[in-house]
């Protein structure tokens, strides 16, 4: 009873105090199926929101959907309760957002990985192919068997773009390299199936691959695990995953979803909000290869020089990395 009273009292204090702290924004995030602790794509978004909370003291609400039907509900409920901005993580939210955003023209929305062309929506897409090119280059240089692998999550153009950039990068380093490419599945469940990711990786390793890049969200844990178990190298994605198996993760293709989320929150609170399409590539620091303590022994001076040169060339436009989504085909 007493506890309840204190609980209520504390709650009342927060409710009184909250408007003073967060006068302008009440941000919310809706994650995709992998969940905010997938150590990859969604977790990067989570880190962005946490960083904003730490810097400004503004609390935010988030929601991890359990199935596809919840996307629309979650977005609408946040909008109804006055959350603003609402950031939807993942391309699968696009359909739901197209329905919900026009219903709340005053609310600002943002979506990561997909373009939704509405006046109150900011669409943030990344040039994953550019980052993948760099890790492909590193993979080819690190491979002793001249065979590398790619394990994708769901078979969609976005993931094919990862694969295509990776292939182009690998072939730029070694034109004779052999590349195995597999997808885990064709539904959202493919983001959360580490066992299958592990089996695909084992099958690629059995065929001779010794560096395997994954773009598979939560399933990627299985890919990196299988690579580490076999003493081979994995390549992480979205978040910096070098620390998951130090010494057995060559690098990670970092996608700055965290910055995208952080900026969405910040821009609205500082009255700098702009809707429209943001395309973040190497030049904009939207993608990068992860370079830290955990993989410094794996990256040789030669590799470092090559990857630095390549990233400079991409930014200068000397190397054009093919985007699978431009014509739905991969020439490599």
């Amino acid at each position, binding site marked *: 009873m007493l506890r309840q009273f204190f609980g209520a009292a504390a709650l009342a204090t927060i409710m009184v105090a909250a408007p003073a702290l967060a006068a302008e924004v009440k941000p919310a995030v809706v994650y995709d199926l992998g969940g905010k*602790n997938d150590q990859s794509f969604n977790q990067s978004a989570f880190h962005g929101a946490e960083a904003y909370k730490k810097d400004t003291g503004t609390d935010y609400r988030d929601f991890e959907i359990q199935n596809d039907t919840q996307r629309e509900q979650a977005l609408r409920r946040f909008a109804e309760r006055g959350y603003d901005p609402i950031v939807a993580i993942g391309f699968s939210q696009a359909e739901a957002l197209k329905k919900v955003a026009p219903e709340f023209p005053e609310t600002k929305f943002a979506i990561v990985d997909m373009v939704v062309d509405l006046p109150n929506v900011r669409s943030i897409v990344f040039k994953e192919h550019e980052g993948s090119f760099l890790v492909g280059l590193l993979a080819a240089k690190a491979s002793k068997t001249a065979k590398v692998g790619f394990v994708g999550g769901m078979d969609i153009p976005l993931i094919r773009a990862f694969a295509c950039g990776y292939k182009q990068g690998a072939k730029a380093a070694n034109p004779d390299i052999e590349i195995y490419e597999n997808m885990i599945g*064709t539904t959202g469940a493919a983001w959360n199936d580490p*066992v299958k990711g592990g*089996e695909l990786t084992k099958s690629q390793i059995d*065929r001779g691959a010794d560096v395997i890049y994954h773009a598979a969200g939560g399933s990627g844990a299985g890919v990196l695990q299988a690579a580490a*178990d076999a003493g081979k190298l994995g390549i992480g994605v979205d978040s910096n995953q070098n620390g998951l198996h130090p010494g057995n993760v060559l690098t990670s293709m970092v996608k700055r979803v965290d910055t995208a989320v952080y900026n969405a929150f910040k821009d609205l609170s500082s009255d700098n909000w702009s809707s429209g399409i943001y395309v973040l590539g190497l030049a904009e620091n939207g993608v990068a290869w992860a370079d830290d303590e955990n993989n410094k022994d794996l990256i040789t001076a030669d590799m470092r020089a090559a990857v630095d040169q390549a990233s400079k060339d991409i930014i200068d436009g000397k190397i054009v990395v093919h985007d699978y989504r431009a014509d739905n085909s991969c020439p490599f």
Partner: protein
Amino acid sequence: MDFLQTLILTTDSAVRLSVPLLFACLAGLYSERSGVVDIGLEGKMLGGAFAAGCVAAITGSAWLGLLAAILVSIGLALVHGYASITQRGNQIVSGVAINFVASGLTALLGQAWFGRGGKTPQLPNTARFTEITLPFAEPMRNVPVIGRIYSDIISGHSLLVYAAFIAIPLTWWILYRTRFGLRLRAVGENPGAVDTAGISVAWMRYRAVIIAGILCGFAGAYLSIAQSAGFSKDMTAGKGFIALAALVFAKWKPLNALGACFLFGFLDAVAIRMQGTALPVVGEVPVQAMQALPYILTVILLAGFIGKSIPPKADGVPYTKER
């Protein structure tokens, strides 16, 4: 790549993939042979996988993880037993309830204890059942055919894989060569006769349900601390139901169960392996078609090729003693 190599590696992968099905299928076999329908295999496996993941993460011991998996799974099995044997409740409802409880509770407790969205911490190799190489695997490799089969398919699995394949003949022996097995089969066909012989029907069924719990514990531990390195939400992904289908497929017989589970595992392995490889004549088959293959074949085989599959006569019927 040569055909033999592909076949050997696919079979190797099939062995790994069929293990959880084997354990769960045998669990269902004990339970259903005694007359208790067990649709809760999935839930018990999931509970076991979670317990194994937690305990292995905290203690750093794979064996304690396995023990915890078995205990939790037996606990869930006893709930099912109490509802369907003692209280004579509907066995399907009780089983479905166990599946729901396991699915919700593992995610909830996982989130509350570890705060990683229902996942348990990633395990180091010392806290897992890692792959073991059988003696002479390396020198045997050069012997034609048999050497490859021994060193690539039979050797190089975790301890639990061997346990699963030992469990098959053991189950056969228990079922057909022991007094307990005879009574177990009898209690599923005609519990009245067993009761007349002065044997407790309830106690027989409880023992069967407990054995099912132990086997599901093994299946769960295999998933979370042998095949992967930690529990993740809903990681059983319907394997309990596939095992149940395999049980029907196998006509409730242990040796058939081996065949059925291995077939499912093999189809899964083929689907994974064939992805993205060009086949003769047809060329590259789309991923979707390959992934649907196990299910299509299951339907075809179930519909036409295995003949009539008759369950134990008293399966699913609670026993009421006449007074």
